[in-house]
């Protein structure tokens, strides 16, 4: 019963999205609907997470009742749960914030349905257990985000959107090709099935099909592009700069994490297993260094709050890539924790920036100032979020970075750890820049006049509620890091040793097979389970006898019953054609 509840993460936003199209001109109705939808998904995600905190269980559901490798699987394990909970809360915060920031016209241009549909795509990509379905959910999410990006229709927005659509179209094409090739090579697209096949092949020492490394790198490219990993991050700063700030907060907090989540899901489970693991690990590790360091250098050089925050997204994506590159359960747990805390903290910083702009009419640090005197609440919220981002103990960023950097230090990735620490220092510098120019120093230079009818706290109340919700969540992640880490460590272990994941989706028998193969370096034979399965006497004799000829004849005679039966029903006359078709050796069998 609990298993099928996870469908609600997909159904609720989709249904709300469709309903809000009906009420698109009644702002009050759509706002209420949207708030209910996001609150419900948040509560559901947190509740389900709490239920798997101790044992690290996995909820699965098969779409349409089709059994696992054939139908589409929806999986709620520790990693998906963490991501879903964080993304739902972030969406709720940004959504409430938008009531105060967006103008009425924008809101009626299908902002509410689009946001719901984007969350539908995001939730589906966190839940899905199928590679092609992941592509589809990416597209649902991207399609809504294209529309959200151009929602005002201004010149600058259209220009940036063109770039964004173009890049993502190319990324999607590579994804489709990679998914097709993966199906061609492995005969399946179900992630659990892929993980099972790869683990089995590795255990019995059979090489993976030729070209697997290429396909794996193609997938890393695609997820890196969506997640703004070096050298694929160039699209990010401009595109997140032009959208309305509430939407920008959601994009900056969430969309890159979807790419990172996919990387964290696929790389340890099946992409980087076996002989080609060092190749992929090296590629990701180098990318991590550059992503972290170049991102933060870019942020230090900018002088606009929005631009600083947008470029910072890249730098922090580097930490997640770092966690994935180390490839241990510990590092992946740190990566999972860092992802959720970054989602919350980064979005709350963007939202603070939205309120700052409302006060001073600009986000240029040369033109604003003195916000501390004008509004101490905003200043407090900002400084807590900024310190969380930097990673000052006991705030959430500290616990994220601590585990990742420690894991890097103990596994020979010390250079990544050094760059990680250095990046933290520069992050502090750029955050202090916003603080000292924007909040602390008195207003200087040609200050932009505050727009007429200057916003009062009352009018901005929803914005404050949104930011407070997110900052509160960030504080919770900092002060109650232990229970969250308990889940995160389950997530890391499940990723490194996917037998539990395989067992939940493909059944315990399959997971047992994998465990057996890993322990004994061979596949379980029928004789291993004699008591369980009754096998024909001649076959047992043959396998005990061990001679090649009798083995083969036993194989054939075992196969014969089925084949002959099928032969007659298929109405084919030439037996050898059929044997060739099914891939059985035909030496010694005269047609």
């Amino acid at each position, binding site marked *: 019963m609990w298993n099928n509840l996870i469908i609600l993460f997909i159904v609720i936003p989709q249904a709300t999205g469709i309903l809000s199209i009906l009420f698109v001109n009644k702002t009050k109705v759509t706002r209420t609907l949207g708030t209910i939808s996001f609150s419900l998904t948040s509560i559901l995600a947190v509740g389900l997470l709490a239920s798997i905190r101790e044992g690290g269980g996995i909820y699965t559901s098969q779409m349409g009742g089709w059994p696992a490798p054939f139908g589409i699987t929806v999986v709620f394990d520790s990693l998906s749960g963490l991501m879903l909970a964080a993304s739902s809360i972030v969406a709720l915060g940004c959504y409430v914030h938008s009531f105060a920031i967006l103008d009425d016209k924008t809101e009626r241009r299908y902002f509410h349905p689009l946001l719901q549909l984007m969350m539908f795509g995001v939730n589906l990509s966190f839940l899905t257990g199928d590679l*092609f379905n992941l592509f589809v959910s990416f597209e649902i999410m991207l399609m809504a985000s294209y529309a959200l990006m151009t929602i005002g229709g201004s010149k600058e927005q259209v220009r940036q959107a*063109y770039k964004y659509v173009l890049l993502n179209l190319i990324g999607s094409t590579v994804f489709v090709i990679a998914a097709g*090739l993966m199906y*061609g090579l492995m*005969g399946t*697209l179900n992630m659990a099935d892929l993980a099972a096949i790869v683990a089995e092949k590795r255990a019995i020492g059979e090489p993976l099909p030729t070209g697997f490394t290429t396909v794996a790198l193609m997938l890393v490219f695609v997820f890196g592009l969506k997640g703004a990993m070096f050298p694929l991050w160039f699209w990010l700063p401009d595109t997140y700069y032009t959208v309305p700030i509430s939407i920008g907060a959601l994009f900056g907090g969430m969309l890159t994490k979807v790419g990172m989540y996919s990387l964290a899901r696929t790389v340890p489970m099946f992409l980087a297993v076996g002989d080609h693991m060092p190749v992929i690990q090296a590629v990701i590790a180098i990318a991590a260094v550059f992503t972290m360091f170049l991102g933060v250098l870019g942020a230090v050089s900018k002088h606009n709050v929005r631009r600083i925050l947008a470029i910072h997204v890249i730098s922090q994506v580097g930490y997640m890539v770092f966690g994935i590159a180390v490839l241990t359960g510990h590092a992946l747990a740190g990566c999972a924790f860092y992802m959720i805390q970054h989602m919350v903290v980064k979005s709350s910083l963007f939202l603070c920036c939205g309120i700052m702009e409302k006060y001073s009419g600009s986000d240029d640090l040369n033109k604003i100032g003195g916000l501390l005197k004008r509004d101490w609440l905003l200043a407090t919220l900002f400084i807590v979020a900024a310190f969380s981002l930097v990673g000052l103990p006991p705030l959430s960023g500290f616990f994220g970075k601590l585990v990742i950097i420690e894991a890097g230090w103990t596994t020979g990735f010390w250079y990544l750890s050094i760059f990680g620490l250095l990046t933290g220092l520069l992050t502090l510098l750029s955050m202090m820049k916003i603080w000292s120019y924007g909040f602390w120093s008195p207003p200087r230079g040609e200050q932009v006049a505050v727009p007429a009818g200057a916003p009062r706290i009352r009018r901005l109340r929803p914005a404050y509620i949104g930011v407070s919700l997110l900052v509160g969540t960030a504080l919770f992640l900092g002060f109650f890091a232990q229970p969250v880490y308990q889940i995160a460590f389950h997530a890391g272990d499940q990723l490194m040793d996917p037998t539990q994941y395989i067992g939940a989706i493909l059944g315990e028998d399959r997971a047992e097979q994998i465990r057996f193969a890993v322990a004994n370096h061979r596949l379980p034979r029928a004789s291993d389970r004699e008591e369980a399965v009754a096998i024909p006497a001649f076959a047992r004799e043959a396998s005990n006898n061990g001679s090649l000829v009798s083995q083969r004849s036993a194989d054939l005679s075992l196969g014969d019953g089925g084949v002959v039966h099928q032969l007659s*029903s*298929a109405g084919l006359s030439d037996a050898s054609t059929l044997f060739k*078709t*099914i891939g059985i050796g035909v030496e010694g069998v005269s047609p």
Partner: protein
Amino acid sequence: MTVILAICVGVTFAMSIYLMLGRELKEIAMGTFLITHAGNLSIIAMAGSPMVRAGLLKRAPILSELGLRVDSLPQALILTAIVISFAVSGFLLTLVVLTGRTQQTLNVDELASE
């Protein structure tokens, strides 16, 4: 058959990349449409004919009373991909039209210099 398909995929890719290197927004958009076709073609090539595939892949073609049947999953993948790329292409063309109306030009250099 596979060779012919491979050549088709290669030529389509080459053409699309050539178009994407152009200086007009329209050309670039056309290039991306072509590249999605190339992707779909490559999935067909990967699926191959049932006889060739059988020994190579995990799931052999299904035998039924209707005779040999091909694995229908690659077709399903392509169908989904076509529909999605169709929608995205439509959106991209809308953006091209919007840009043309607001900026009076579709040349990348002129757009960048503004």
